[in-house]
């Protein structure tokens, strides 16, 4: 993109300050109580996570910044950030972190928090994908990739479904996709019982 000469009218001058009363000071503490996120407070802001992350270049806040903001109580900014949804769970940050912070787990925890508080970016299909996936598992005990993806697109971006119809058909022709679901060999009831039990135990972390 060509560099444009800045004009006075284009200089968006905004007042940027954060007052303590706008923060959720307990947010960092809440997050560290989650298994896997306990070392969050040890972060020294070195940025190893951000530089090893293959996706940080697409993020509005780098993973390092997300940790700083979480710790400092910038709850709204963190939960509405695209960063947590861009994490693809490759675990590079977790392996490289010199403080052994399980950053991937922290990202999972933040995703769950965002879903719980219903603040994920609108139009982002990931939470819907996760929910559809859950529904599929609850029905048959197994995931049907094709069906799940088709449903997600139907719910979020119907046009996308059309655009990918060709791929779907080609996969079907090669026996790699089916609308018929794979099922557990036994009854799904046992599985549902287990999931219900988790649901009922008050773990404090399951938005369920």
């Amino acid at each position: 993109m060509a560099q444009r000469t800045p004009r006075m009218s284009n200089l968006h001058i905004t007042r940027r300050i954060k007052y303590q009363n706008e923060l959720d000071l307990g947010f960092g503490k809440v997050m560290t109580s989650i298994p896997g996120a306990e070392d969050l407070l040890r972060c020294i802001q070195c940025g190893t996570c951000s530089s090893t992350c293959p996706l940080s270049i697409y993020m509005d806040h780098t993973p390092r910044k997300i940790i700083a903001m979480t710790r400092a109580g910038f709850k709204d900014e963190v939960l509405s950030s695209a960063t947590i949804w861009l994490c693809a769970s490759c675990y590079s940050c977790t392996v490289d972190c010199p403080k052994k912070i399980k950053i991937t787990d922290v990202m999972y925890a933040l995703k769950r928090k965002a879903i719980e508080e219903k603040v994920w970016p609108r139009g982002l299909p990931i939470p819907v994908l996760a929910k559809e996936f859950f529904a599929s598992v609850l029905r048959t005990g197994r995931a049907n990739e094709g069906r799940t993806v088709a449903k997600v697109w139907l719910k979020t971006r119907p046009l996308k479904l059309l655009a990918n119809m060709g791929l779907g058909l080609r996969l079907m022709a090669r026996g790699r996709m089916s609308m018929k679901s794979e099922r557990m060999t036994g009854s799904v009831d046992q599985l549902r019982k287990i999931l219900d039990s988790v649901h009922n135990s008050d773990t404090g972390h399951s938005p369920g």
Partner: protein
Amino acid sequence: MKYLYYPGCSLKGSGRSYEESLLASFKKLGVEMHELPDWNCCGATAYMAVDEMKAFALAARNLALAERYGDGEPVTLVAPCNACYLALMKVQKYMAEYDEVGRTISDALASADLSYRGGVRVRQSLDVLLNDVGLDLLAEKINHPLGQWKVACYYGCQAVRPFAPFDDEYNPMSMDHLMRSIGAEPVDWPLKARCCGGTLTGTIPTVGLRLSYIILREAIDRGANVVATACPLCQFNLECYQSQMGREYGEDLDMPIVYYSQLLGQALGIDDRSLGLQRHFVPLTAAAAVG
């Protein structure tokens, strides 16, 4: 050699040829694989974002079934899919490491008359091939060495991260050794375990495609004429979105993306159909190293 085998959902769907080629190869090598009866979805990556405990519970049920199957004997559960492999390993670790996870999951299992005491060893199929079957036996059984292939061994993320019990997390070598043993030449490249974008190819395609393209581009630049993967999602991304990547980046891409087990199967003299090669979009015969 006898193992309990956990296929996972992908190996019954888009990754069908992984299962076909792996089971055929193991059979040829005299290794018995018994599918875990009544297994369920492992909980995988996406589920962690909705409800971690439920994801753990899903994975734990499989471990409980496997332990019961062993009936007091030590059990090895082979999970060829990286995502399943990690999900199963993770719940095992976290149940031991975090009281809260251990308690909640044990209670949940108990509600269905199941229990898990940590007696299952979860292993990736590469690990089994390298360390149990061993390169010596492989060398003996190989009758169709594959000298024509320069292979970019692509391990993906979750086979070596965050837990790396059988290989190095920065420069994994097990598949490289395997490829060398079947006569192919593994190329030296730095992206062996870099992320392919995972589910982002579907959910945020601009980003996901770019990540997959980076992998593919580097494999080509390093002189590979085939990419071998150990993960059904990696395989899907690199192959099924290849034409889309081509359009996006204005390149003619024609790189076969196979499972390491398919190349192994060929070297063992198994026919292409039994290895599921007809299920792929870019035929293995293309041998197209695109400049």
